[in-house]
């Protein structure tokens, strides 16, 4: 008996270095040969009917592979996924033929309310069942295997039955989805909740990591905040070295969403990521 759902396209192994495409750098990407292997865009910014954003994305796509990174799928919503959202994302993906389609292990929406923030999931069996069902629906609707990113979080819930990395590992096992490992988020959450970042790295299935995010954060009064407004700090670079030693060569990118500096500054950070990537695994482990 045939499978009732269409097959999903698996993600290719890709080991380049990229940047998030931000408005401040549109001209650079359209008019110069920016030395990146791919760019990542926020999917929702281009899930519009038409106009200049889609036009720019089409032009950038002619020069670079593009990863679509979403913030509003709300894969953890207790009341399911938004079908219109999936339809629009599918249309964008069909047009752009992206390197990856990713979103976050979080929820943003409940009963018609959308927070526009990546809200934390409780790591429980009930949440795992629901997230897996939603991922299956999303991957069927998109016709491709998705990547999910570990978000930064600022609270944990009573009654959790597993760690975040156990949740991610089981989620991958059940759904076949891949991971977008945000090393800065691991560092922020580990600091905020007091867990061991290296236990996180050791606990996620390394062979399912297809992409790594690097970003900066800020120190709040009581907690670290994932602000994406500063350069990657030394501790996160060290954790990146550890991650690379475990997962091998995968797509790596720098995320900067606020106080966006000139492109050359971000390219300098990306060169640092390349330098880590050129080191053999045993050297990376020692560096970490």
């Amino acid at each position, binding site marked *: 008996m045939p499978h009732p759902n269409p097959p999903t396209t698996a993600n290719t192994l890709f080991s380049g270095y990229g940047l998030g495409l931000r408005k401040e750098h549109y001209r650079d990407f359209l008019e110069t040969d920016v030395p990146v292997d791919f760019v990542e865009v926020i999917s*929702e910014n281009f*899930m*519009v*009917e*038409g*106009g*200049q*954003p*889609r*036009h720019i994305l089409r032009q950038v796509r002619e020069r670079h592979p593009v990863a679509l990174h979403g913030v*509003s799928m709300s894969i*953890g*919503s*207790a*009341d399911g996924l*938004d079908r*219109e*959202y999936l339809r629009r994302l599918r249309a964008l993906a069909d047009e752009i033929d992206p390197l990856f389609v990713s979103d976050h292990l979080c*929820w943003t*929406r*409940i*009963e*018609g*309310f*959308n*927070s*526009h*923030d990546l*809200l934390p999931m*409780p790591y*429980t069996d*009930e*949440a795992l069942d*629901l997230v897996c069902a939603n991922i299956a629906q999303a991957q069927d609707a998109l016709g491709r295997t998705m990547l999910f990113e570990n978000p930064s*979080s*600022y*609270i*944990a*819930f009573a*009654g959790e039955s597993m760690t975040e990395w156990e949740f991610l590992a089981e989620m991958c096992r059940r759904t076949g989805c891949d991971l977008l490992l945000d090393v800065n988020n691991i560092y922020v959450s580990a600091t*905020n909740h007091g867990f061991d970042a290296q236990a996180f790295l050791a606990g996620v299935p390394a062979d399912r990591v297809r992409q790594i995010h690097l970003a900066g954060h800020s120190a*709040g*009064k*009581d*907690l670290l*905040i994932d602000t994406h407004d500063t350069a990657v700090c030394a501790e996160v670079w060290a954790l990146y070295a550890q991650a690379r030693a475990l997962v091998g060569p995968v797509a790596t990118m720098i995320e900067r969403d606020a106080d966006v500096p000139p492109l050359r500054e971000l390219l300098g950070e990306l060169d640092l990521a390349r330098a880590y990537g050129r080191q053999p695994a045993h050297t990376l482990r020692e560096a970490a």
Partner: protein
Amino acid sequence: MRLAELQREFRAWLVEASPEAAARVAGLDHPGLAVYQNNYRAQLVGCLEVSYPKTRDRIGSEAFLNAAITHIDERPPHAWTLDAYAEGFDGTLEAMFPEHPDVSELAWIEHALATAFVAADATPLAAADLAALDWDHARLVLSPALRMREVTTNSERVWHDGGDAVPLAVPAGLVVWRQDYTSCLREVSLLELEALAELQCDGSFAALCDLLAERLGEEAGVAQAGAWLAEWIGSALIVGAEVEIPR
């Protein structure tokens, strides 16, 4: 607590800052809850500030922040895209500044220009495309980027040069649309606004001629319809034409 209940409680914390909800989600004094509360509100305020820079300049940052807080308290976000949160802010401003209609009109312009910017693409028709059309049965399609409304102040002028807002001698219309990838704004007469609304709704050029003939007389009405049609074609407002087969 079940997941659905947890997410409803979290929403109550974000939207209403309910201490009872906070206590049930993570404990009242948990510092992480304040981070989420701050992220939620800062994100929405930021969206409105980015969407309405001229309106903010007009009324000042403090008054704008008060309006944004009022809007956020009254209208929690619902759409999958943050950009959609800017929709309807002109209504909040209209209620808050009833003596200054220029404020909400300016906000409407900013939002209309932004939504026209990402409206569906459509290829405008040239005059030559319409040369052989059966005008008695022609139905015209206007640009999907077209937005319009009636105004009572010189808000179009204010948007362009930031000058003083004054009431118009007679109410007028505003038309926003897109040419290629550039959003456009123009003040029009109320009659042209009505004509465009008629055409947008019905598409019938004959009905448009009837409307204008009724207002201006037979000869002047038909002449005006032709003149406006030429102008609309030149402005890339007409993107489709078909002939309705009479039954």
